[in-house]
């Protein structure tokens, strides 16, 4: 009896310590800014601050690093579009993490005029990688997870091992913060100083960020033989992205991405059902050279299904095809400075045309 009580209290004590440190702002405020969680939290806080500084003509964009545009350039034509653009995208993230980002960024589901999701493709193309089992999600959203999310979040993983890890992490966040916490203990002063520096500078660093002007000009791909001719001076990273992304071999199409998108975009759309916020999907410039459309037999287009919902808008798939040139990409995935300079105003104009004139109060 005594031992049972001791065990119970000890477990409660563990949850209490964990909650005190990691479910209050005490520790999450001092996460390593360059970590996945730290980046996610910095972006979330930056956008929460931006909400207070802007009116009700805000448009939030969400995506991974492929959604490379400069809100600063889009906002240079706000006088014409009437909308202020903010980017809440996180490199390496996906729709599961965007769901948790939006839930805390826009708790009442009404703050934005539109939320724009940038996707590689409206069709659902499965890759070799199972998005359900992307463990990075846990690290991105750990500070956002609530007790009530634990079971549901863990079940969104396919593998039993990852389900266990996710459940453990969602219940006891210390398991996920371990490495960060130990690094913090190694030099708390340095961490605190760096966090404070990031808090002061992050808005301007990111808003005024200027992308490199490297390009893939001269890249040629023979799609009949799936071979590439690299331009002189192409570095290893660029070659890797060309090989692994642009020229990836089609994987068996088993509907994994479709299910994943239906689940997580479905949840986002459900949150915004009846809201004034429009949900917009755009297809990002696919790459320096478009892959052949028939490279993979895509069985579905879940985004097209979402278009049937009242507050969902689909941007013309080919709206940004004109940017798919090697000279506008720094590697096979990302637009370069020139590409961003063209894409940003194009995006703003396109969104304005879809939303109609701003009714800024």
């Amino acid at each position, binding site marked *: 009896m005594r031992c049972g009580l001791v065990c119970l209290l000890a477990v409660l004590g563990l949850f209490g310590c964990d909650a005190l440190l990691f479910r209050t702002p005490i520790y999450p405020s001092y996460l390593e800014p360059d970590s996945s969680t730290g980046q996610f939290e910095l972006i979330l806080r930056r956008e929460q601050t931006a909400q207070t500084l802007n009116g009700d003509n805000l448009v939030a964009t969400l995506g991974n690093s492929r959604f490379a545009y400069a809100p600063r350039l889009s906002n240079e034509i706000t006088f014409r579009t009437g909308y202020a653009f903010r980017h809440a995208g996180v490199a390496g993230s996906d729709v599961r993490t965007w769901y948790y980002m939006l839930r805390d960024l826009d708790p009442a589901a009404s703050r934005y005029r539109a939320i724009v999701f940038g996707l590689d493709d409206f069709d659902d193309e499965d890759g070799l990688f199972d998005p359900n089992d992307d463990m990075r999600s846990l690290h991105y959203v750990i500070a956002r997870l609530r007790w009530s999310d634990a079971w549901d979040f863990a079940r969104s993983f396919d593998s039993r091992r990852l389900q266990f890890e996710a459940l453990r992490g969602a219940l006891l966040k210390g398991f996920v913060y371990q490495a960060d916490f130990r690094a913090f203990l190694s*030099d708390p002063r340095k961490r605190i100083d760096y966090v404070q520096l990031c808090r002061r500078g992050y808005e301007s660093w990111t808003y005024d960020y200027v992308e490199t002007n490297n390009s893939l000009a001269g890249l040629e791909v023979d799609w009949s033989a799936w071979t590439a001719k690299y331009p002189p001076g192409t570095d290893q990273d660029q070659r890797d992205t060309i090989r692994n992304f642009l020229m990836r071999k089609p994987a068996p199409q088993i509907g994994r991405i479709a299910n994943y998108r239906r689940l997580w975009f479905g949840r986002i759309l459900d949150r915004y059902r009846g809201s004034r916020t429009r949900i917009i999907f755009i297809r990002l410039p696919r790459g320096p050279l478009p892959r052949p459309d028939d490279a993979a037999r895509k069985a579905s287009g879940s985004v097209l299904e979402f278009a049937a919902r009242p507050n969902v808008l689909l941007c013309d798939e080919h709206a940004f095809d004109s940017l798919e040139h090697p000279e506008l990409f720094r590697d096979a995935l990302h637009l370069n400075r020139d590409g961003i300079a063209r894409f940003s105003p194009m995006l703003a104009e396109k969104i304005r045309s879809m939303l109609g004139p701003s009714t800024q109060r």
Partner: protein
Amino acid sequence: MLFNTTTFFIFLAVVLVLFYSSPRPWRKYILLVASYYFYASWNPKFIALLLTLTVIDYTAGMWLEKVSAARARKAVLILSLTANLGFLGFFKYYNFLGRNLALLLGRPENAFFLDIVLPLGISFHTFQSISYVVDVYRGQQKAVRNPIDYALFICFFPQLVAGPIVRARHFFHDLLDWHSPSTDDVSRGLMLMTLGLTKKMAFADQFARIANDYFGHVAANPGMLTAWSGVFAFGLQIYFDFSGYTDMAIGMALLLGFHFPVNFRRPYLASSITDFWRRWHISLSTWLRDYLYIPLGGNRGGRWRTYRNLMLTMLLGGLWHGASWNFVIWGGYQGALLSVERVFRGDRPVGEGRPWLYPLKAIVTFALALVGWVFFRSANLTESLAVLRQMFAGAPGHILLEPWHWGLAGVSLVVALGEEHSEWLERLTKAPVLAYASGLAVMFFFLEMFGAFDVAIPFIYFQF
């Protein structure tokens, strides 16, 4: 099935439920089956070896009690020892001897090589078997009639693979007169299980990363501070790893109603090497004392005989750990230190002296222990010498430990000093519920924040 895995905890939970929900006469059968299952989960083939040794020593025990003629008794003892040491020698030392013989004969190093897998825990259960047969021979232990009881003594899963080496009289006292564990026992058991798991996962495995990095790339890590910090990391790893395992073994035995002897008593607080060996792997050092050092004559034959006996005991103790010259040298080093210490100490009892000198003595003893660990951990003699060269004559180098590692070491030192003076961990188990639960919660939290969950580092002593 490592003690620090979910699989093992599920296994333990099932065993505990089956054990306590079964009628009392069935319980030892449950433990026996569970123990064989536990052993078979590593390598089922060696169950046969375990059974063979069990049958031999059980029979030897029975014969020793039946036979009264001194010669016959001695013959039975020799037969049993030959079988035990024969198996141990073949599995553990054959290739070592073969390699050295080949070198002596000028043959290729692998001329006599056999692909032998070392059965898990053979060194431990062999010593346990030997102690039983010798005790029966000496008349200090009655032969066990029930083969199930004897089989359980040999294969009891909490201590089967890495000790502590339990004496027959302790084990059978608990088994034959089994009582449900008291509340104190369960409290202590839970505390020890948690403490052991924390020691292993939050301390040993974290220091293991540094030690493995260092000893895996000695040539690439030159420098005096580098070498000392790598060896320091190993020194902490091996202590937390082995004592963590032992704590868990003692803890789970308590939950099952068995009492194992203490195996570690804060060895790095020792004030001399003699003191160190009274605190480190106590079940082995007392075994070596009772079955080797004393039969060799102990300290009864004069000074030089004492030194000889110390050296022989420690050399064999070193060799017990593993079949390599490094372990022999490690044993010899320990024997030499014990002998030198005895020269200076004379007949004065250990620990006597000026109290204000204690910190210095403890630091020197710790440093000497660290030097010994170089031979223990290095892959071969050449590597050991390279590490020692760096430790004593290297360029400054850099410290491999990060500040939080020092934090861990500091916490463990504070806990050990507190425990040394007031045995507060023991008292905590008897403290009010809230205090005890808080202690456990702190350990759980430590485990959560510092436990190495992303790697599975086996217990060091499993290889012996």
